[in-house]
């Protein structure tokens, strides 16, 4: 491992020299990382990039990917592209690539041997179209986490649950203690994501793939998925009184012990960290809801629009290199609460939860996530369905499942 690190460092130096002592080139980078933990993580990227003698112009767009993406896409298609931009790798930028608006990074990738350093390999697949690489994955984010407030359970007088089923069983006790059992923010993607996690955890990996990869509508309408909807029904009952919108506000409810737990991706960890909480002591994390310990290889990636200015193009290469640099990877992912995209970095500083994730990763228990499997269109329809499902207690489970099957049937 140490040896690998050194080679990487060496490679970095070489690459830097290749890039030349670029006279500070401004490169605008757009992203939607604006919460406390996210901003701290992005600062690491900026720091590393600025250290190469260039300048990171921060183009943060608050809201969420939903707010930011249209703006980014308008700018790229409108002929005013930024230097680099965040997307979830997968299918979000597919058409931009097809339209020839994004820069082909294959040469750089070959030179720097990305196919070897990026682990797990499936990450690069998300960046690859027709054999060419168009993006740099920067982290692995997995959705399948349950975050529990130890303080809340203590207050309710029940032990911290070990899995989803125990958690559901503990809900009445939490409620009695005046604690919201489950926090689900009002933003549609949170409800939809929570369901996906339940599908993967309660239904199992195969069920998940059958629904989202094979788009098997019949299966989606069948009894196995009905089980998942039953769990989702539990979840919405537990989350009934959530009065917040943003995911990090929901996380904050867990941090402050006002809520028992939250189903949220590992980025929530950054919030716990910013709040100075310690994994294991103040909060507990259950990957795969304690039922199915898998890590989804979703995550963030940077894409580089095709630019005319050679100076900026050069700076783009430097940035791409910097993003994969082991040091950057470590610093960034520690702050972000996500896992690094290369297996050769040392995460001594990682906390309990991250280590759990790394372990699962090392075992190769990885699965693709909806960002890779489904189009944004299908994702959005799913969001509409589940945000309605979670908000409208009188919507029947059967009805929801029927609509879900329809969406799966027409998914692309």
């Amino acid at each position, binding site marked *: 491992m140490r040896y690998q690190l050194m080679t990487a460092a060496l490679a970095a130096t070489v690459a830097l020299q290749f890039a030349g002592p670029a006279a500070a080139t401004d490169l605008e980078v757009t992203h939607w990382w604006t919460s406390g933990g996210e901003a701290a993580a992005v600062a690491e990227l900026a720091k590393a990039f600025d250290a190469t003698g260039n300048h990171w112009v921060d183009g943060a767009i608050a809201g969420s990917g939903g707010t930011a*993406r249209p703006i980014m896409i308008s700018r790229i298609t409108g002929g005013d592209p930024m230097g680099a931009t965040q997307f979830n790798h997968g299918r979000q930028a597919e058409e931009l690539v097809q339209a020839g608006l994004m820069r082909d990074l294959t040469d750089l990738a070959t030179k720097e041997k990305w196919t070897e350093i990026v682990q797990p390999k499936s990450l690069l697949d998300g960046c690859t179209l027709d054999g060419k690489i168009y993006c740099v994955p920067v982290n692995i984010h997995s959705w399948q986490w349950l975050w529990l407030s130890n303080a809340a359970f203590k207050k309710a007088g029940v032990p911290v649950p070990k899995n989803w089923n125990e958690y559901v069983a503990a809900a009445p006790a939490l409620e009695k203690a005046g604690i919201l059992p489950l926090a689900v923010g009002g933003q549609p993607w949170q409800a939809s994501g929570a369901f996906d996690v339940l599908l993967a955890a309660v239904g199992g990996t195969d069920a998940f793939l059958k629904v989202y990869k094979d788009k098997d509508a019949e299966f989606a309408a069948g009894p196995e998925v009905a089980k998942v909807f039953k769990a989702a029904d539990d979840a919405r009952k537990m989350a009934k009184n959530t*009065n917040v*919108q943003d995911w990090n506000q929901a996380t904050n409810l867990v941090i402050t012990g006002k809520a028992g737990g939250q189903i949220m991706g590992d980025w929530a960890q950054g919030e716990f960290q910013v709040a100075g909480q310690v994994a294991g002591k103040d909060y507990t994390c259950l990957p795969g809801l304690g039922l199915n310990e898998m890590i989804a290889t979703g995550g963030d990636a940077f894409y580089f629009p095709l630019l005319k200015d050679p100076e900026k193009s050069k700076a783009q290469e430097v940035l791409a290199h910097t993003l994969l640099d082991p040091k950057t990877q470590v610093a960034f992912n520690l702050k972000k609460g996500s896992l690094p995209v290369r297996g050769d970095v040392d995460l001594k500083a990682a906390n309990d939860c991250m280590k759990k994730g790394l372990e699962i990763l090392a075992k190769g228990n990885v699965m693709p996530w909806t960002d890779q499997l489904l189009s*944004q269109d299908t994702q*959005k*329809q799913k969001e*509409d369905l589940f945000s309605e499902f979670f908000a409208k207690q009188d919507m029947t489970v059967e009805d929801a499942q029927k609509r879900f099957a329809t969406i799966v049937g027409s998914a692309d």
Partner: protein
Amino acid sequence: MSKSERPSQLFRNLNAKVASIPMIFTALVIFVGGTLWTVLYSFTNSKLLPRLHFVGLDQYYRLWATPRWLISIENLLIYGVLSLVFSLVIGFLLAALLDQKIRFEDTFRTIFLYPFALSFIVTGLVWQWLLNPEFGVQGVVRSLGWTSFSFNPLYDSSIVIYGILIAALWQGTGLIMCLMLAGLRGIDEDIWKAARVDGIPTWKTYLFIIIPMMRPVFITTLVIVASNIVRVYDLVVAQTSGGPGIASEVPAKYVYDYMFFAQNLGQGFAASTMMLLSVIIVIVPWAYLEFGGKKRV
């Protein structure tokens, strides 16, 4: 024999035509062109980027089978009718009150008008805050001892649209009041004298004489209010983001979300085409009657 040649029809009134180029450009290229473009692409399966791959009416079938679209339409109807009625009624009543030769008219008018200076984003944020169940109106009333008091429109699917209506009325009625006040001031004093001599009660005078005389004001107001209703978007985004669930979704938001969030331009275009169609069905005949026929002699 005639010395001055009959100038070609194209060059008559040339300056007026040259000056109208921006308007003609806006009307034809932006509004008509943009609309046609949108309609054309609504028959395609364009995703992130517009592509001419036609799929017939598929997008429309899907649109009308989507619960969220149906809810959006329903919300717009409720919101539209109520907001039209209430802003006209409240605006007119306020104007009528201010028109009673009262003292401090300027102060009152400024108070009623100032929210109009604030954007929908700001309006949405403030009212989201005021209607917050924990520390907003509900929380305060409860803390005063009335613990069963319940007023939580923003987190209750069945009444959330009224929560938005409250904010919209707060923001918009001031302008309506101003328009109405101007209209009232434009009424000939003699009308009032005549009504007084005839012994017609004030409210009847307003209802049967003054309001019919204010037709032009009502039309201007209608254009402003109605165009804002169809376009309502920012307010919903700032106040509820369409939530809880999809209970406060509106068509404009559907269009935006599907065009950009869902990266399904075809679906978004189909939805906007439906919006345009309904606007055109209602507006165009009226606009022709109102603005088209008038010739000056």
